[in-house]
C-alpha cells in the first residue's frame, strides 16, 4: 500500500505525468475528430474506440517504462528490496499504481462520452464494455511494459521494446496483415494469430461483446507477465 501510494503520487511529482496525460488526451481527441466524430452522425464512441488500441501502444509504455528501470538506474532498488516487503507485493503495487494513473487518462476521455450523450442517444452498455476493453488492453500492455522495464536500467530502451512488442501483438491479427499474407498463409494460422491479437479482442469489446475468450485472453496475459516480472526482479 505505501508503495502504491508512492508510485501513484510519483506521477504527479514531476511534470512528466502531466505531459503524458496531456499528450494522450490530445491524441485521443485528435484521432476521434480525424476519424469523423462529428461528421458521422452516429451516437456512439466508435471514433474513440477504433483508434484507441493504437494510442495505447504508445501511451502505456510511456506510463510504465519507469516502473523498474528508474529504480535500477538510481540504485533505489536496493532500498526497495531491503524493506520488509515481498517482491510479489512490490510488483503488484507498482502495477496497480500505474494502472490507476492510466485509469485517470481514460477517465479524461469521458468528455467524449458526455458530448455523445448530449448530442444523441448512445448505447451506454456498448460504451461501458468499450471502456472495460480499453482497461483490459491497458493492463495487458502495462504488464508487458513492466517486464521490459525490469529487464533494463534504461527507460528509453524499456519504452522502445514495449512499444514494439505491443505493436507486434496488435498487428498480428489485423485484417491488414491477413490481406498482406493473403493466400500464402493457411487460414488456420490466420485464425490462430487472430486469437492472440489485441485488435480483434478489443474490437469485439468495443461493439459491446464481452466474450469469455477475450476476457480470459487479457487476464491470462496480464497475470503471466506479472509472474515473469516477479521472476525477473528476483533474478
Amino acid at each position, binding site marked *: 500500500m*505505501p508503495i502504491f*501510494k*508512492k508510485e501513484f503520487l*510519483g506521477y504527479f*511529482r514531476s511534470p512528466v505525468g502531466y505531459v503524458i496525460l496531456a499528450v494522450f488526451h490530445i491524441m485521443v481527441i485528435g484521432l476521434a475528430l480525424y476519424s469523423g466524430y462529428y461528421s458521422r452522425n452516429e451516437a456512439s464512441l466508435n471514433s474513440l474506440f477504433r483508434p484507441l488500441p493504437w494510442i495505447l501502444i504508445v501511451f502505456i509504455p510511456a506510463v510504465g517504462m519507469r516502473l523498474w528501470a528508474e529504480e535500477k538506474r538510481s540504485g533505489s532498488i*536496493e*532500498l526497495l528490496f531491503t524493506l*520488509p*516487503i*515481498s517482491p510479489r507485493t512490490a510488483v503488484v503495487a507498482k502495477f496497480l499504481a500505474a494502472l490507476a494513473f492510466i485509469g485517470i487518462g481514460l477517465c479524461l476521455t469521458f468528455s467524449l462520452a458526455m458530448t455523445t450523450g448530449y448530442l444523441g442517444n448512445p448505447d451506454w452498455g456498448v460504451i461501458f464494455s468499450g471502456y472495460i476493453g480499453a482497461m483490459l488492453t491497458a493492463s495487458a500492455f502495462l504488464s508487458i511494459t513492466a517486464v521490459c522495464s525490469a529487464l533494463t536500467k534504461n527507460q528509453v530502451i524499456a519504452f522502445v521494446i514495449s512499444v514494439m512488442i505491443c505493436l507486434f501483438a496488435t498487428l498480428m491479427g489485423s485484417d491488414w496483415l491477413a490481406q498482406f499474407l493473403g493466400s500464402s498463409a493457411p487460414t488456420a494460422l490466420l485464425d490462430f494469430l487472430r486469437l492472440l491479437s489485441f485488435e480483434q479482442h478489443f474490437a469485439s469489446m468495443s461493439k459491446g461483446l464481452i466474450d469469455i475468450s477475450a476476457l480470459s485472453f487479457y487476464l491470462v496475459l496480464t497475470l503471466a507477465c506479472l509472474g515473469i516480472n516477479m521472476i525477473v526482479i528476483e533474478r
Partner: protein
Amino acid sequence: MPRGAFAFPFPRKPNTWDPTPGTQNKMVTVDRLVKDYGTLRAVDGVSFTINKGDILGFLGPNGAGKSTTMKMITGFLTPTSGTATVDGFDVAKDPIEVKKRIGYLPESSAAYPEMTVVEFLTYVAEARGIADKDELNSRLADVIVKCHLDSVKYRAIENLSKGYRQRVGVAQAIIHDPQVLILDEPTDGLDPNQKHEVRKLIQAMSADKAIILSTHILEEVEAICNRVIIIDQGKVLVDETPAAFKARKPGATIDEVFRELTNKTVLA
C-alpha cells in the same frame, strides 16, 4: 495493509535456549559467505559474528567485497553459498523477518529525488509497517532531530547537498529503530564536521544495537569501532579489536599496518 495480522502472537526467539553465556546477544552471524559475479569471486568465505553493542568496522581497499557482503546480509543479494543469520532468522529462509530487523544505508545513499525529505521518510516508515499516525510523526520528528534535517525537511532530495543526502540516508535507516544497522560508507562525501556528527550519532545509538559500518578511513575505525575486520579480495584478513590491530606493529600508525597487510596479499 494489516501487516502481521496473521502472525504468530509471540515473537520467535530461537536463541534464548542457547546455554553459552553471552550468546543471547548474538545479533548477526555470517557463515562462510561466498558471492560470485560470473567468474569473479567477490566474496570468498567470509565468517564473523557480532553482538548487541558492537560497532564493527568493515575495512578494505576498493573492490574488496565489503558492499557485496553487506548486501547479502540485508537480503538484497542472494549468496552463492553460505548463510547469514540475523537475530536467529536465516536471510535465505525468512527474508522478511530479517529485513524488519535491519536498517540499511546503501553505498549510493539512494533515494527518490523528486520526493521531499519528509515525504521520503514517511514512505519508508509506512513501508516498514509504522501505520499509526502519532507514532509515525514522533519517529519522523526523532530522526529529523538526530540527523539535523530540520532546515531541509520540505526540500526535494534532488536539491540537497551530498552531506544532507547522506544524512537522509541515515535517517531512513534508523527510522524504525532497528536492532541491526548496516551502513555502507556512512561518512563518505561528508566534510570533517559532518563526519564527526555522524560518528557521534552512530556511537550514541550503539548500546542497544549491533552496527556494521564499512569505510576506508582508518581513523574512523579507531575512533568508534570496537571490532575491526579487514577484508581484501573477498577474504577476511584480520578480525580483532582496533587496539590489538594497532599493536601488531608497535609504533606504526594504523594506516601503515593496513597498507602492509593489504599489499602483502596483492603481491603474494
